[in-house]
């Protein structure tokens, strides 16, 4: 019974977040500027959570997440510019995600044999290739990029895709397949010795991560209405990685919290434009010194964790 109640509580919380967001949007408290920040935040959450699946849970160090995002963005933009309807938008998101997943599969199959820094370099190269391809294709309008992508992203869509991504990836991680992925991070040889097919699960995680990065890219295109290849460079991949590491390698709630925290920091620092990046960098350094394992470590934010925390506090004070 307790488990059931906990499960319900999660859905009630999600509903609450949605309703609060909806009310803020409808009353106009969330103005255009704040809504743009919220959109960036949600996109970053999707990116970080999906990268965490690859890097945090499966242990495959990838520096190419922006590449997958750009595929989703361009595919979705090209589709919605031709079919400017809600079904067209959904088709665009789906096609964008699938295209990213397909590229993830093609790239992942040969490169996931590499380990650690070698894989990082290979994925970095992949993202660069994708960027150069978009820079030179006629259909993506080269360096000038695509302008006037129809804007479909509203709070309900944003919420649906973000919550959906977290929910699906969280379910995957807690499934038998997800645990197989985690064993690869823990010890690949041991994983193989108990009969886990390492390549298969690495590719699975990589393709899933790419799929959701494609969704994030699609949402980006459908909100910010213009795309340029330079938007998806190396620094964006790093930004995503920073969120993952800051939140904690292997903690989904950590990724969400870190994304929110970084969004708050950078929004607050808007008022000091000349010092903004300095403060931002200092904040990162300080957090990493104080919590080298990331904000959440590999733990998830759960009611059990809060209860245990409360208990140990009490024990210490008594």
């Amino acid at each position, binding site marked *: 019974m307790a488990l059931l109640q906990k499960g319900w509580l999660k859905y009630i919380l999600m509903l609450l977040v949605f309703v609060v967001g909806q009310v803020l949007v409808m009353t106009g408290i969330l103005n255009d500027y704040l809504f743009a920040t919220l959109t960036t935040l949600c996109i970053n959450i999707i990116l970080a959570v999906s990268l965490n699946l690859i890097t945090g849970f499966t242990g495959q160090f990838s520096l190419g997440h922006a590449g997958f995002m750009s595929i989703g963005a361009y595919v979705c933009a090209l589709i919605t510019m031709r079919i400017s309807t809600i079904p067209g938008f959904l088709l665009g998101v789906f096609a964008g995600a699938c295209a990213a997943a397909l590229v993830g599969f093609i790239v992942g199959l040969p490169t996931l044999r590499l380990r650690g820094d070698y894989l990082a370099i290979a994925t970095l190269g992949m993202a660069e290739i994708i960027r150069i391809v978009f820079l030179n294709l006629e259909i993506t309008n080269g360096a000038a990029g695509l302008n006037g992508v129809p804007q479909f992203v509203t709070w309900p869509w944003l919420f649906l895709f973000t919550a959906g991504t977290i929910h699906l990836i969280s379910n995957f991680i807690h499934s*038998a397949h997800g*645990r*197989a992925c*985690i*064993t690869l991070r*823990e*010890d690949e*040889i*041991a*994983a*193989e*010795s*108990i*009969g*886990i*097919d390492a390549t298969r699960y690495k590719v699975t995680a990589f393709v899933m991560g790419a799929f959701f990065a494609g969704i994030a890219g699609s949402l980006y295109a459908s909100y910010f209405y213009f795309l340029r290849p330079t938007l998806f460079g190396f620094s964006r991949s790093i930004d995503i990685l920073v969120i993952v590491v800051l939140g904690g390698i*292997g903690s989904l709630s950590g990724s969400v919290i870190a994304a929110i925290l970084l969004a708050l920091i950078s929004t607050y620092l808007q008022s000091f434009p000349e010092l903004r990046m300095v403060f931002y960098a200092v904040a990162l350094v300080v957090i990493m010194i104080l919590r080298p394992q990331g904000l959440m470590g*590999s733990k998830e934010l759960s009611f059990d964790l809060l209860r245990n925390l409360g208990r140990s506090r009490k024990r210490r004070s008594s």
Partner: protein
Amino acid sequence: MLEIRDLEVYYGVIRALKSISLRVKEGEIVTLIGANGAGKTTSLRTISGLLRPHAGSILLNGVDVTQLSPRERVKEGMSHVPEGRRVFPMMSVLENLELGAFLRRDKEGIEEDLTHVYERFPILFDRRKQMAGTLSGGEQQMLAIGRALMSRPKVLLLDEPSMGLAPLLVQEIFNIIQTINEAGTTVLLVEQNANMALQIASRAYVLETGSIVLSGEAKTLLESEEIKKAYLGGK
């Protein structure tokens, strides 16, 4: 039960195994002993499929498994306890054991085997919720063996279970290997601790720089002057 014929393994251009042949009959404990770098771990990894041989074949119960993946070999009844224990450090003892049964779908059988492992290693039951990385070396070795048993193997491949353990614990681990064997599991044991290995094994092979230089009854080898001088520290 397990037969290896003319196995050749290369690391790049280096020939690590030079035409190795050995057989393990059902119900036996066979040990493969030798010094550092002789090729013991390489042999075992090739048998379990983690390494690919350049030539030769591996037969399990008469079935040629040389081309099968490690996963399929586990399904065929092989289970490998890798060198250096290699438990999943950030997972609980129970999760480690459950993962040992990763390829199995028979829930009741898994429960049953879990009980057996806990009976064999009561300390693992006490520590079932603890992270495996926080266990002592001996406990981790027990966990690694327990995890391998969870796939219900016909042949258990053990790679240096005595590594880095105190003498008393080594004795305990070897006793456990013996009881596992008595319960019907065939064992191929790779060891540097020749003395201990020969005491529980029925037959043995001696590996030296990639070739088998000697083989025979464990008892005979235990008394052979050559072995005493080279591996048992005798005079």
